[in-house]
């Protein structure tokens, strides 16, 4: 087939076009700054690995369950994401009119997923092999090979599953849009009428502002509800505020992260309207924040009831919920069209800040705050100037 590399070519051209459209000064900043940061991170990890080499070498649960499980899971996640990406290009609207069958489109996506997956597997093998070499683990190359096999297995399993089950998203999208649920009023109406009206419905892509129940939505609601109830029960039975307060905080942040969408900030509809960035940003964060606080209240209330003398704990959880939600809202506004990248970057930044603050104390938090301010500034600038 002549065009089986079409998806790969499309995916290759996207970053190239992005690089070409950037200024040389910005490219130099990213190249030099990114390389320096990467080199520092590698050096830091090597030092940390060497410091804990003896412990790591003999931590058998890590080598028997932890690492293989993590590699399988990460491989599965990478396979799923890459297959989705490749399929989205294989079914791109501008390819809709081309005489390509479903099988041909799947094959194009598979070729691209395979071509992109192989370097990732090699990278994982090299990383694990190098890590084993640093901590002087015997048979480091074999561990690298094993890591590649496990990661590759997870990658292939989810990628093949996703590619095989793919249907034509263009046709599915059209048929979903064709279903007009008319008749009943938008459920979100009373919550989404503040100026600018219907902004959250737009951000969430709710057809005509109506919430349609799906297995994913019901499953997530049940899972979050169950975790809140279990944590609240544990706290009440043990008279200990910690479990419920922790679930209130983490659950609240997760609800916010899963529901916050900021892509309308990139639309000319808002950018050419007499509406400032801060107002648009706050309005987009409003409903996700209400959901997050609503989730927070049940376990936080249980924490307070379980141990009234520890009232400061749910209060502190509430404070940190606001701080973390605010920080994530800035990340999500910066990566407005890629919520997954926003979540990954936010969690990465939080994890890195926590790790470094163990070594350098709380001053590292200032660095995190500076990063949030920088992202806010860039997102605001892009909203104003494109």
């Amino acid at each position, binding site marked *: 087939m002549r065009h089986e590399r079409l998806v790969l070519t499309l995916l290759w051209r996207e970053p190239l076009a992005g690089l070409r*459209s950037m*200024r040389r000064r910005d490219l130099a900043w990213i190249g030099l700054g990114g390389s320096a940061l990467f080199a520092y991170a590698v050096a830091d990890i090597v030092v940390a690995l060497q410091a804990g080499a003896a412990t790591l070498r003999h931590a058998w649960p890590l080598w028997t369950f932890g690492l293989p499980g993590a590699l399988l899971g990460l491989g599965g996640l990478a396979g799923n994401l890459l297959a989705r990406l490749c399929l989205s290009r294989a079914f791109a609207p501008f390819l809709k009119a081309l005489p390509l069958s479903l099988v041909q489109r799947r094959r194009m996506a598979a070729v691209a997923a395979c071509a992109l997956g192989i370097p990732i597997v090699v990278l994982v093998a090299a990383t694990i092999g190098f890590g084993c070499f640093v901590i002087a683990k015997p048979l480091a190359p074999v561990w690298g090979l094993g890591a590649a096999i496990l990661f590759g297995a997870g990658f292939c399993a989810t990628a093949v599953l996703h590619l095989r089950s793919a249907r034509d998203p263009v046709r599915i999208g059209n048929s979903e849009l064709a279903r007009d649920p*008319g008749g009943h009023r938008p459920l979100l109406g009373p919550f989404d009428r503040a100026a600018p009206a219907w902004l959250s419905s737009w951000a969430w892509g709710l*057809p005509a502002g109506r919430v349609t129940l799906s297995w994913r939505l019901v499953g997530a609601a049940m899972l979050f509800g169950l975790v809140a109830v279990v944590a609240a029960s544990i706290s009440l039975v043990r008279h200990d505020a910690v479990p419920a307060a922790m679930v209130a905080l983490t659950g609240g942040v997760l609800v916010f992260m899963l529901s916050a969408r900021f892509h*309308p900030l990139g639309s*000319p*509809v808002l950018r050419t309207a007499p*509406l400032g960035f801060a107002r648009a940003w706050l309005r987009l964060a409003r409903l996700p924040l209400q959901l997050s606080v609503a989730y927070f209240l049940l376990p936080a209330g249980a924490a307070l009831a379980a141990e009234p003398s520890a009232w400061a704990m749910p209060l502190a959880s509430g404070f940190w919920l606001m701080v973390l939600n605010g920080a994530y809202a800035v990340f999500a506004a910066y990566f407005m069209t890629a919520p997954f990248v926003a979540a990954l970057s936010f969690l990465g930044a939080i994890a890195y800040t926590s790790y470094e603050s163990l070594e350098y104390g709380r001053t590292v938090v200032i660095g995190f705050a500076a990063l949030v301010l920088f992202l806010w500034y860039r997102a605001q600038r892009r909203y104003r100037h*494109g």
Partner: protein
Amino acid sequence: MDSSVHPAEILAVRGLSAGYGGRAVVSGIDLSLNRGDILGLLGANGSGKSTLLKAITGQIPPLSGSVNVNGADLASAAERAKFGFGLAIDPSDLPVALTGRQYLQLVGSIRGCAEDDWPGVNVAERLGLKPWIDRAIAHYSLGTRAKIAIAAALLGAPPLLILDESLNGLDPLAAFEVKRIILALASSGRHAVIISTHVVESVPGLCNRAVLLADGRIARDWQPWHLAEAGQMPGAFEAEVMRALTVQATDG
């Protein structure tokens, strides 16, 4: 408020250069629009029409020069300047999940007016939007999307209306109605309109001014008396524009 701006002047563009990635696509643009003006913006593909309109509407920053809308500087008082114009959004940029009514409510709530606060006429009715208004924009054809974009641009009766090739997808009746609305707005003496178009023959009958962009610069400028004169002889204005375009293409 800039003291050099005459109250009748709705748009003042001075020495504007704008482009992408630090490279200018349009440069040295000087343009002034008064109430009652209908400006036809002409030019070949890639001549810089859309880039100029993006710079005027604050979607890209100017590399140099200034844009002043209804007395407010776009750089220092962006929100006040944006109150001064209504832009018909490109159909592909509309929020497809919302219904037409919800989109009008969204724009109306930002501009601080009702969803049907149009200048003098019921635009939805005149453009035949009524049967579609409560359906998701995703269901709309290109022409219906252009209609809802024009209807939203007119909400709150902004002094300056900007249409970037918005007349292209309209059916003849809707195009006729939009032209009537534009003429009524301009004759009221409170509004000005910019229409970027490739339909050169429609310019003398609709616009009282026209500029031709070539290689990012204003290559020709037609004043009202000149356009009126050209409009009297069928095909004269079209022939003049084609000549100018051919000369530009040959020089280029």
